[in-house]
């Protein structure tokens, strides 16, 4: 009964999304106020219907209703309750429903705050969101319905893929998707502005908090995935330039460019059409990400499903959405041109370089990700592109970006002067250089060429980001949230760069064959293998090894890596044992029995690797803080009083250090 109810709710949601799209777009176009008034009730109704569908699916999962195909394929009666719930998005059909549900949540949030926007503009934004939702609902109902029944019902389910039975991966898809889907809001704002044929600094002020919030979610989602890959896949890496990782990384890069370009559009009214283009691109790449992951066209560690009809549908949807938006752009963008100029050394220039470098980075990732696909379809041979391509090309655009960042945040708007910051800036650069040399040559004592450069850039970013807040604190001037957020995010980036450098330069790893009582020396640590014992969990059995770690003869810790065999799918997973010690992660993964009483074991000592995710987390927190800045809300309220878009008045030249994010 519940599955049918959910199915029916989805069909109703599709109809409501159609209404929302039609009246939201056609209402303002024909000037019919009463049409626009239908939009918000349609949003609410759609949210209720989609919520019902999600609740029905989760309830069926909890009740172990194996007469539903999707549940029979992705759950099992022995599965713990928590994973029975998260199994809802464990595979393609459910994760699409999750996508739609999150889009509906974002839409409701926009609708709630839309009372502060001009009504026509709000209707257009919601209309475009309805169109996106309509496409995805149609896709779900036509090709990937999670509510289809299985005839005859299965006695028990085939279980959730064991590598997905993990807390981090359970919450990874919702957070990542919240970020992906959040760019739909920026996209809808961009389309609405183009339909309106009008774009001013108020528009940027409305769009910024949504975009920054989506970006923060995407940041956390990507890092969760990377963290999971690190401890669960058993290889001990944190980034593989895997197509699916790239698929989430490209929207992140373009989204990062977008939040910086929006800063210029808000403060100075410049980069307008460029901002629009980035908003379209960011969402297109989110859609492309969905396409790449779900169509199975790419060889990937994540591709679970491979179904060509789905791929073709998403591709068609992609072409309609992106093609439509780009056509609109070609038609309307010339109307929105900005004319003011700026000096070469002004902050606008630095943000322009930021945008160019980020887009180049996204383009190189894009090329490397799609090249195998293109070469394959043109029958040029099956090829693969990996870290040897991505690392140098990516670094090529990132190094100048990092170097320009420290200077750029101190440049003033419009005029190319570094004002009084030049001396402090030079001082921080020298300090960063010295600190980097100490870190690289004294603490770790050996290095590659780029190690001191990377470390110095990271430290410089942190120091230089702190100049302005410290200055303000000393002079007792308030620190607005926007600026605090920017500072936090840049410090997070600095931490990220430093830890990335140390991990890439100083990681020691070794695969060894050890019998009980034998030792392996890796870096400064000695690992003694004390044999294995059998273990049993709720839905798996396996073995657990005991590894005693000592450093310079002193006992450090004991690690228990596991090898699990899940009963239903008969598949084996590696549960690496990881412990942080002196900032380094000790990583031990149990391999297999080699005979003669020996086991293959992988050891890694990665310095500061945890700080990679910590840095990303700080970046995301910075984004959240910036998005909560009071000025977005205050100004939106002021605008609703005026009931019309504010004139593009010249913002007084902001002092150096005013929030760029």
């Amino acid at each position: 009964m519940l599955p049918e109810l959910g199915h029916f709710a989805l069909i109703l949601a599709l109809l409501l999304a159609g209404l929302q799209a039609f009246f939201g777009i056609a209402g303002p176009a024909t000037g019919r106020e009463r049409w626009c008034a239908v939009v918000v009730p349609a949003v609410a109704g759609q949210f209720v219907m989609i919520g019902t569908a999600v609740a029905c699916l989760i309830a069926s999962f909890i009740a172990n209703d194996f007469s539903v195909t999707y549940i029979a394929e992705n759950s099992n009666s022995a599965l713990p309750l928590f994973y029975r719930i998260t199994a809802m998005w464990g595979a393609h059909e459910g994760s699409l429903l999750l996508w739609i549900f999150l889009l509906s949540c974002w839409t409701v949030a926009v609708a709630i705050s839309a009372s502060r926007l001009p009504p026509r503009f709000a209707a257009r934004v919601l209309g475009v969101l309805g169109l996106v939702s309509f496409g995805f609902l149609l896709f779900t109902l036509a090709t990937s319905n999670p509510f289809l029944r299985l005839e005859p019902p299965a006695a028990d389910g085939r279980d959730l893929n064991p590598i997905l039975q993990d807390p981090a991966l359970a919450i990874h898809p919702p957070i990542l998707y919240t970020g992906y889907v959040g760019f739909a809001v920026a996209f809808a704002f961009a389309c609405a502005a183009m339909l309106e044929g009008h774009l001013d600094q108020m528009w940027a002020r409305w769009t910024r908090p949504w975009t920054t919030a989506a970006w923060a979610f995407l940041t956390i989602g990507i890092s969760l995935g990377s963290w999971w890959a690190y401890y669960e896949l058993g290889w001990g890496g944190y980034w593989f330039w895997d197509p699916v990782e790239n698929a989430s990384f490209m929207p992140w890069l373009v989204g990062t460019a977008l939040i910086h370009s929006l800063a210029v559009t808000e403060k100075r009214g410049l980069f307008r059409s460029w901002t629009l283009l980035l908003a379209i691109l960011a969402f297109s790449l989110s859609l492309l990400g969905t396409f790449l992951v779900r169509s199975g066209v790419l060889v990937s560690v994540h591709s679970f499903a491979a179904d060509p009809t789905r791929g073709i549908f998403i591709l068609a949807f992609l072409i309609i959405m992106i093609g439509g938006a780009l056509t609109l752009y070609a038609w309307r963008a010339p109307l929105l041109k900005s004319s003011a100029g700026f000096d070469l050394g002004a902050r606008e220039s630095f943000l322009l370089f930021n945008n160019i470098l980020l887009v180049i980075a996204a383009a190189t990732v894009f090329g490397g990700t799609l090249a195998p696909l293109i070469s394959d379809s043109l029958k040029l041979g099956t090829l693969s592109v990996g870290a040897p391509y991505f690392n140098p090309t990516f670094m090529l655009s990132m190094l100048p970006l990092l170097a320009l960042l420290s200077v750029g945040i101190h440049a003033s708007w419009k005029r190319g002067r570094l004002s009084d910051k030049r001396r402090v800036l030079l001082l921080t650069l020298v300090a960063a250089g010295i600190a980097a040399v100490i870190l690289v040559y004294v603490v770790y004592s050996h290095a590659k060429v780029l190690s001191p450069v990377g470390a110095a850039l990271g430290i410089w970013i942190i120091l230089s980001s702190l100049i302005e807040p410290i200055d303000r604190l000393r002079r007792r001037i308030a620190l607005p949230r926007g600026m605090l957020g920017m500072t936090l995010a840049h410090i997070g980036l600095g931490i990220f760069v430093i830890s990335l450098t140390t991990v890439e330069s100083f990681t020691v790893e070794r695969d060894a064959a050890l019998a009980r009582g034998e030792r392996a020396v890796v870096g400064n640590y000695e690992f003694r293998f004390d044999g294995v014992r059998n273990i049993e969990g709720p839905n798996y059995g396996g073995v657990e090894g005991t590894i005693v770690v000592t450093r310079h003869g002193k006992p450090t810790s004991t690690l228990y890596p596991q090898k699990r065999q899940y009963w239903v799918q008969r598949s084996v997973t590696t549960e690496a044992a990881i412990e942080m010690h002196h900032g380094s992660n000790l990583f031990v993964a149990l391999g297999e029995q080699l005979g003669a009483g020996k086991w293959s074991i992988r050891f890694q000592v990665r310095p500061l690797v945890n700080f990679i995710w910590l840095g990303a987390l700080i970046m995301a927190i910075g984004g959240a803080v910036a998005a909560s800045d009071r000025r977005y809300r205050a100004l939106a309220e002021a605008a609703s009083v005026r009931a019309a878009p504010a004139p593009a008045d010249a913002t007084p030249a902001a002092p150096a250090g005013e929030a760029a994010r």
Partner: protein
Amino acid sequence: MTARKRRMILVFGILAGVSVAGALALTAFRQNVTFFFDPSQVAAGQVLAGERFRLGGMVTKGSVQRAPGSLEVHFVVTDFKHDIPVTYTGVLPDLFREGQGVIAHGRMQGSTFVADEVLAKHDEKYMPPAVARSLKQRPAATTGSAGM
């Protein structure tokens, strides 16, 4: 310097930067792409001497051998027309199994493929598309074919 001149400098600077980046990316691309070959293509001599490539196919049943207690493992990768012996030293992935699809990175040394990385796919139902396609001539062999 007039505003126009400054803008021209900016535009040319950006253009130069972008083209340098593009050229470098293309070079990096050409040098670092690895091709995928199946055992028949290797047997037909399509692989350049010393070239690093990805070998894909099925692990022949009963071919996995190792000296007790050694990390070095030997197995045979097949597409049911030709066989290529492979050696690898290190920890094998969880889903590496006889009769399953596998992709190995490495180089030919004589008639043996020396792998430095071995990948098996996570989902048992899943077969790397390249492997699935090269095995298509023998449908019975694609037991693990992709699809839900």
